[in-house]
């Protein structure tokens, strides 16, 4: 098949549909790691079409039953890696026990993308402008990884290294993400600022806080589209813990963002503008949290 010079078509690869995790890992190893796992493919297929990537082998993991399903496991919700973005909206267990993910899901791309894209795939790609990777930080989630040496679990805080760089080693696969169950004394908030709905956010933020009456006992604030990876706002968190959400402490948290975020140089959105937008968004979300959001 001749696609010509200007067409946007993937280079040739072989395709293998794995039935089990072991089969998928085995195939990856046998291809000399010149392979890619494909699940929803909503980021990978464009990358292949644009020939940013050209693996010898594509390993389809979408038929592996073990990677599916959402269920309670002890104090956590186990969200299978193949859980599609649209299921974050439709699955009752997500709405009840991981409502921050439910709130973030409508902001993830467009409806047809959400019908295919998977939670595990989004976290594995670790696009710094994506909603879900950042939310695993706010949720203090754990990422379960399968590889040649067995299974391991990595805290979200220790998963995201740099631009598209994570704790995943070549040939490793995310199997599930474990999210602590949402509790009655917790509140959450999520929003993002984008030029158009469905576009990548200029700045986005999600947060999860534990309260005693109106005092914050603990809070985790996570931003996306602010740097090379999703980022916790630890200085802002520290400015809030032990206090109520009054104007003074919200302003202190906004001021502290300077220590948390270092937005990169960008022609369209200069760092100062992005930091400003992050402060605006933080103020709005903390305001909602104060109202019991």
């Amino acid at each position, binding site marked *: *098949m001749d696609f010509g010079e200007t067409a*946007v*078509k*993937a*280079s*040739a*690869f*072989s*395709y*293998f*549909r*794995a*039935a*089990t995790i*072991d*089969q998928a890992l*085995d*195939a990856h190893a*046998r*291809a000399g790691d010149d392979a890619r796992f*494909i699940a929803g*493919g*909503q980021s990978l*297929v*464009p990358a*292949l*079409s*644009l020939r940013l990537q050209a693996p*010898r*082998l*594509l390993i*389809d993991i*979408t038929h592996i039953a073990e990677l599916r399903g959402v269920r309670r496991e002890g104090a956590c919700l186990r969200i299978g890696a193949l859980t599609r973005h*649209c299921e974050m909206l439709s699955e009752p267990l997500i709405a009840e026990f991981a409502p921050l993910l439910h709130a973030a899901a*409508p902001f993830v*791309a*467009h*409806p*047809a*993308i959400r*019908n*295919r894209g998977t939670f595990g795939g989004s976290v594995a790609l670790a696009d710094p402008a994506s909603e879900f990777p950042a939310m695993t930080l706010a949720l203090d989630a754990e990422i379960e990884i399968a590889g040649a040496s067995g299974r391991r679990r990595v805290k979200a805080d220790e998963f995201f290294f740099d631009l598209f760089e994570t704790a995943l080693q070549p040939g490793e696969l995310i199997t599930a993400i474990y999210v602590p169950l949402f509790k009655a004394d917790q509140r959450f908030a999520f929003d993002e600022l984008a030029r*158009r*709905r*469905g576009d990548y956010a200029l700045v986005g933020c999600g947060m999860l806080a534990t309260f005693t009456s109106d005092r914050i006992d603990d809070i985790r604030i996570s931003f996306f589209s602010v740097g090379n990876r999703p980022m916790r706002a630890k200085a802002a968190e520290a400015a809030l813990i032990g206090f109520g959400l009054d104007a003074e402490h919200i302003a202190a948290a906004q001021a502290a963002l300077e220590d948390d975020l270092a937005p990169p140089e960008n022609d369209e959105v200069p760092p100062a503008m992005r930091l400003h937008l992050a402060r605006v968004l933080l103020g709005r979300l903390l305001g909602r949290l104060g109202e019991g959001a």
Partner: protein
Amino acid sequence: MRGFDETLLDEADETVRVRFVVNGRKVACEVAPRETLVDCLRDKLELTGTHAGCEMGACGACLVQIDGRAVHSCLMFAVQADGARIDTIEGLTESGAIADLQAEFHRRNALQCGFCTPGMLVNACELLSQVARPSREQIRDALSGNYCRCTGYEAIVDAIDAVAKARSAGGAR
């Protein structure tokens, strides 16, 4: 543990046989693994109602239904759809499932060149199957991944809005 065929790695340029149910009919065809579903539908099955626009998931012209859900056929390789039920604009048209949407698009000039229209209709079909009476904002949000370079969208939103109202006034379809 086993299941991986070593010779597979040498067969990247060879075709593999896939089977789908396309618009209610069982179909088998030979595809290269790198062939996208939209190319397979258009070139192999001659279902050219599905349009290939940006080929990177941005424009929405290539939307089809896979197992009843709208997806971009440019963001899938045909091999991934092996065993799936696929409904294209041709099938949705033949079944009459979107006849009211099509009539309303026509009546309100919700298309000019028509390139985006199949994707718009697949998207609208899914929206109305999930939300009986979407607000105009919900309609716009649902269409956010479908580009139209002719109409300015207003007539498209009008048409979908009108069909939603007519359907709910007429009871369950």
